[in-house]
């Protein structure tokens, strides 16, 4: 089943109508990518609707880590675990290898690795996207 878009005004309108019909004061929906809060307060002049809807990616938008130079990309131990980890300032998303040189590519402080964008061993150029990270919640 496809998740509905909680920022879509038509959907919010339908949900509000359904809440009114059911006599419910409000609803809060939270998903990893979106959240929605609708509050209804009854009065003599009819319901006052308050709603807020947001895409969490506006505060936790993924950032692309680009290659700082040409090299052969190899993911670091941090990323090889396959489970997202929260990085520290010294953590890397991988290394660029040029001959005997290994250049670490920093993930950035307090970042969570989302995914790598290139396969291990791929030759990447300056500015090529190599990983996606997102700020720690």
């Amino acid at each position, binding site marked *: 089943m496809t998740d509905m878009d909680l920022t879509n005004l038509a959907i919010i309108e339908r949900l509000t109508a359904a809440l009114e019909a059911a006599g419910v004061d409000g609803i809060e929906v939270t998903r990893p990518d979106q959240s929605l809060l609708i509050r209804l307060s009854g009065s003599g002049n009819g319901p006052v609707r308050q709603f807020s809807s947001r895409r969490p990616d506006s505060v936790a938008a993924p950032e692309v880590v680009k290659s700082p130079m040409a090299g052969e990309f190899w993911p670091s131990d941090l990323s090889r675990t396959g489970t997202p980890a929260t990085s520290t300032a010294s953590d890397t998303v991988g290394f660029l290898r040029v001959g005997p040189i290994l250049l670490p590519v920093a993930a950035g402080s307090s970042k969570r690795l989302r995914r790598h964008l290139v396969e291990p061993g791929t030759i990447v*150029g300056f500015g090529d996207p190599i990983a996606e990270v997102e700020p720690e919640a």
Partner: protein
Amino acid sequence: MQSKQRFDKVLIANRGEIALRVVRACREMGLKAVVVCSEADRNAAYAKSADQSICIGPSTVSKSYLNQNAILLAARLTGAGAVHPGYGFLSENTRFSAAVEEAGLTFVGPDASAIATMGDKIAAKKAMMAAGVPCVPGPDTELPSEPQAIRAIAAEIGYPVIVKAAGGGGGRGMRVVLNEAELLEAVSLTREEARKAFGTPSLYMEKFLQHPRHIEIQVLCDTHGNAVWLGHRDCSMQRRHQKVVEEAPAPGISQELIGPVGAACVEACKQIGYRGVGTFEFLYEDGAFYFIEMNTRLQVEHPVTEETSGVDIVQQQLRVAQGETLSMGQGDVTCVGHAIECRINAEDPATFMPSAGLITALEMPEGEGIRVDTHVEAGYTVSPYYDSLIAKLIVHGRDRADAMQRTRSALASFKLEGIATNLPLLRELFEDAAFAEGETDIHYLEKWLKTRGAA
């Protein structure tokens, strides 16, 4: 034989039309080509035409096309066995040539010592005089610092004289002196400019020729002591020392007159152990040639020589770099017909201001004797970061008049929209009677532009 080749993959340390030109030569020779590019060029179609392309840095040339370490790392990364520098950028950089060789790769060009010798104009002049190449009157030694000695040299040469930076070239670092009253101040200013611009205050002095033409001789040398010259070119149609139109052969210069000069150039190459292609540049006035400098690289205008001589100069460069012996002797070199090259620049035809932006439409001339070397296409965005040269129109005809007429037709059918180019100026120039007559000097275009501006 393939197994005897020194390399099978060439990294091209350049961009634009010349990168594409070298890719074509590699492909025709069965070599793989790697193109390095900057961020501004990473999505250009020409970069993707190579077997491999790799972005080595930001758009700024100092961080990409002039970044020696990044280029060498890219060569290592891609397994390239040779580096072709094209023209401009690092093509005449002594340190780069040496660094490529030290990295165990082949530099497609002369070795560092030859570049250094020719890069120092005093050393170059000394070497040329030793080989019997005619030079501009003036000593082949550095200008002394004592005022009296400077005055004596100028008086012996005869005014007007020109003071030049030993490390200069391409029209930079020089000052004309008309009489003794201007001499010492001119020397002092040029010395300071030379120190800042070229890292050495070393100067030399020569006779200033007032109405010369710019004539070039193309040479090709292998590493086994063989050398030939491939005819001559006239590149007098210049604006601010930048060539606009080039042609081969130089009109009005007989084989009997230039033959001994070409032979002397070949001899000079043998004496200094030169390898690869190179160009001897001369000023020509009143029937005499005067050496000014040698370019130790492929030139922008090499196609006019290719069209008249039938020799693929870029392929020859690569063969020499592979260690092959030249497949031709001087007797095999014959030049046929006449060729003209027009540099198509992305610039305003009136103000000469660069014009960057999107090319919305492009129709290039085609037909017998027509060649266009370019990296642009409809939808290409001309970057403001680099030289404004976007295409070269090269036309070959049975003689100069035929080549001129074909060039007029080709220019008329050349359509490029979206940005300003110098095409209107070139069309107008090719209608000029004096240019059509030939043998105009290096000041002609600037005078013509002034007249045109006043009209």
